[in-house]
Each structure stands twice: as structure tokens, then as C-alpha cells.
């Protein structure tokens, strides 16, 4: 029974991780660098959603507005800070993204302050199914996460934009000679990546009930773990990686030591990487 209960919790947490990981990995596929400021997209999504909710919009509307806004911010950040460095190799981009994370996180703190703020989700008693408690908001999270992953799948498989994104990710040089404007695809990718990050942030806010400026930065590492586990650049790998990390964290927390649940995520990751240096779905280095 405890096992089933743990799996239920793990799936919901995994859903949050998976959504965020898909956002991070999408941008990687096209830009080939890991954005250490991705966690801030989560933070921004949660805070903007709260802001819109506070001015009287319903949560779903506030959420939609927030993720769209984060998408736009993502494009702005990329154009201002990342695009000029695209030809300078890996390290400048990595370090710049760390700088961007500092800036965004502290701008949020400057405006929102440091005290935790409650995210306005109603408090609900769980549904009990044969002795297993299924928290209602976890059902919502899982539902939204699955819908988001389905949406990403549809985007990548059935829209021209998604196919262009995949083409650029597959072979940027060939995409270019095939007449695809990599600049536009890049913008679109940043938009989608940040947008999904914003959504991940809202799901994270629902999970942890309270918001704080450093929430995204703290969660980033778990998202990284999911992305690497699946293989960087592979959206489906990120989905699987996210769910696995979520399950590993909850199982480890329940059966081994709760305080090491983060460590668990990494140990699973490192173990997988030793066996498969490019992750489960064999992403790109």
C-alpha cells in the first residue's frame, strides 16, 4: 500500500519535473547549450501567475497569461544575452546563463520581496481509493503535465514549426541550406522553451504551495537530472527522465532516507550516465 501511495506521489512530482525538463531540452536541441537560467523561467511563471491572479483573474486565465509572458521574456533574454555569444563556444554561454539566473532571481526578489507567498490554490482533502490517498491537486498537476507533454508531442510531430525545430536540432547546417531561417526558429524555440518552463513553474507552485524567488534555481538541478537521464536534446527522453527522477526521489525518500531524496535523483543520474554516457535516449553531447 505504501508502495502504491509512493508511486502516486512520485508520478505527480515526476510530471512537474518532466514538463520543466521538456522545456529545457527543447532549447538545448536547437541551441546546443544548457541554460542555467532556465530555473528562473519557472520562478517567473509562478510569480507572474500569482500576479495575474491577484489582480482578479481566475487561475487558468492567469496561468495562460503568465506562461505567454514568460515565453516573451525568454525570447528577450535569449536575444539580449545568448544570441551574441552563439559563435563563441560552450563556456561563455554557460557562464552567461548563470549570470542571467543571478539577475532574474534578484530582480524578482527586489520586486516581490523575500517572504514566502502562498499560491492561491484551494485546499482540498484527498480522494481515497482503496486505502491510497490521491491528492486532488496532484491529479490536476498530472493532468496538466500530461496535456502539456501531449501538446509538445503534437507541436513537434504535426506542426510546421515543430518540424522546423526538429530539423534545426537534427542538422542546423542542412536546415539552413534547406531555406529555414534559423533565427526565426531560434526565437520560436526560446518562446516555447520558456513558456513550458513557466508552466513547469506554475505546477511547481501548486506542488509546493508557497513561492519564493529562489524556487526555480533550487529545482533546476532536478530538472537537469531528468534532462541528462533522458539524453540532452531529446524531448521524449526528458519526459521519461522526469517521471523516473520523480519516482526515484519519492521511492528513495520513502524507503531509504527522506533527506537524501535530492541526492537520490543525482545518484540515479550518475549511475545511468556511467552505463550510458549519453543518457537513456542517447542525446547529443
Amino acid at each position, binding site marked *: 500500500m505504501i508502495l502504491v501511495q509512493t508511486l502516486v506521489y512520485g508520478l505527480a512530482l515526476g510530471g512537474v519535473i518532466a514538463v520543466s525538463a521538456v522545456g529545457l531540452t527543447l532549447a538545448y536541441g536547437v541551441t546546443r547549450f544548457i541554460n542555467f537560467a532556465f530555473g528562473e523561467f519557472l520562478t517567473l511563471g509562478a510569480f507572474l501567475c500569482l500576479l495575474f491572479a491577484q489582480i482578479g483573474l481566475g487561475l487558468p486565465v492567469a496561468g495562460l497569461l503568465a506562461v505567454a509572458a514568460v515565453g516573451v521574456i525568454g525570447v528577450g533574454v535569449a536575444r539580449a544575452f545568448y544570441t551574441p555569444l552563439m559563435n563563441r563556444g560552450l563556456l561563455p554561454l554557460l557562464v552567461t546563463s548563470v549570470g542571467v539566473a543571478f539577475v532574474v532571481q534578484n530582480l524578482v526578489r527586489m520586486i516581490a520581496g523575500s517572504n514566502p507567498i502562498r499560491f492561491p490554490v484551494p485546499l482540498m482533502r484527498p480522494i481515497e481509493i482503496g486505502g491510497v490517498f490521491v491528492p486532488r491537486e496532484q491529479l490536476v498537476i498530472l493532468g496538466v503535465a500530461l496535456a502539456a507533454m501531449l501538446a509538445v508531442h503534437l507541436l513537434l510531430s504535426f506542426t510546421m514549426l515543430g518540424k522546423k525545430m526538429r530539423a534545426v536540432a537534427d*542538422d542546423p547546417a542542412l536546415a539552413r541550406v534547406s531555406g529555414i531561417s534559423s533565427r526565426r526558429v531560434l526565437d520560436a524555440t526560446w518562446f516555447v522553451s520558456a513558456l513550458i518552463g513557466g508552466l513547469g513553474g506554475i505546477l511547481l507552485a501548486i506542488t509546493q504551495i508557497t513561492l519564493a524567488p529562489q524556487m526555480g534555481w533550487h529545482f533546476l538541478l532536478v530538472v537537469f537530472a531528468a534532462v541528462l537521464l533522458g539524453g540532452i536534446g531529446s524531448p521524449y527522453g526528458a519526459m521519461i527522465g522526469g517521471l523516473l527522477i520523480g519516482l526515484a526521489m519519492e521511492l528513495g525518500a520513502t524507503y531509504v532516507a527522506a533527506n537524501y531524496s535530492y541526492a537520490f535523483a543525482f545518484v540515479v543520474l550518475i549511475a545511468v550516465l556511467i552505463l550510458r554516457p549519453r543518457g537513456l535516449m542517447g542525446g547529443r553531447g
Partner: protein
Amino acid sequence: MSGAALKAEGLEAGYGPLQILFGIDMEVGPGEHVLVFGPNGAGKSTLIKALFGLVAPTAGRVTLDGQEVTGRAPEGMVARGMAYVPQVSNVFASMTVTENLEIGGARLSRARREARIAEMIELFPVLGERRRQAAGTLSGGERQMLALARALIPEPSVLLLDEPSAGVAPKLVAQIFELVSGLRRTGVSVLMIEQNARQALAHVDRGYVLEGGQVRLSDTAHALRENAEIGQLYLGG
């Protein structure tokens, strides 16, 4: 010839301090199929890249249907009606055949794109059979067909082919040239560079022989095939 489809005048290009092309003059007429060949290191690949904007020319000009396009970015070249099929990795390996074709038609309307894809499948029936297969699983010959089809989807006026027979099983090489030859029906002008010069010459109208970054010879395909000196050009005559 009234208005060449593609024309290069005094084209020079290279990589950094290394100059490869030394004043190339050449042209491809509308609907004409032209072969550029010559020994390794003659500058064939650099020529095709300079024409398509992948290497910025340092001197000279390139005109496409009478409009100057010298040094434009490849995306712009495609928009203006030039298409290019690279020698290697010329398909999106992780995407299906249909998706590869759709990428070729990214700029077209949905209806037009689907119509063009249908036409291409008619032209290359084997692609129809492989529709849902990832391009990475295709054979060398099938890949070339897919790459050709993708390049043709936006109905370019000029098609640049970089060694279409490279990486194709020897017995299929002839088939590839037949396919290229078959493109005459579509009216597209073709500029192709090839190792397999003798075989390729049988399928084109005219040819240029490049050596040391310069045009050494230019003649009809028939005349070039009969020219005995060319073999010596390859082996350091």
C-alpha cells in the same frame, strides 16, 4: 544565350588566407544541365558553396535569373529559387521521409506543399513506400533521392548538386544520374559537380573542367567525353 539561369563572373573565394578560386566565369542556361569536374582539390566544392552563399566570395559576382545574389545567405538563395543538395548528411536523419519533404516545402502553403509532395512521390516512388520511415534508415541511393526531392519541392529554377553519386552503392550510381536526367521534364536548371565524370557526362549538356581553382576547359558533354587529355589532368599530366 538570352539570360542565363545562373551566372558567375570573375568569382574568387577561399578560406581565410587560403584562396581556392581564381576568377571563375561560368553559366547555366535555363533548363540546362551542366557538369563541373576536375581533380581533387580543384575547387569544385568551394565553387558550389560560393555560388550558394555558404562561402562569401572575395571578388566577382553571381547572378540568378538576371538578379545579382552575390554573397547572400543561403536562406535568401532558397527564397530566390536556388536549391542545393550537399554531398553528405543531406537528409534529416531523425525525421521521417514525409517530414523531410515537408521541410523542403516549409515556405509553401499547406495545400501547395501537399501537392508538391505528391508530385515528388510520383517522381520517386520508392519514397512513397518509405514515407513513415526515419530518413536515417534509408540506403545511400534512397537518401540521395530524398535529398533531391526535398530540394525540388519549392520548385527552384536552379539546382546545385554536390556529388550526388557519393556514398551510393556503385550499381545504383547510374540510376541516380538517370534520375537527375529525368529532372529535365521539370525544366529545372542543374549544376552538378561529380567525381564520376565520365558517367555523369553522359547525362548532361555541357561541362566545365576545373583545375587549380580555374576553368581549364569548357565544352559540350559529348566533346569532353572524347577528350583524351582529361585523364592526364587527373594524374598529373
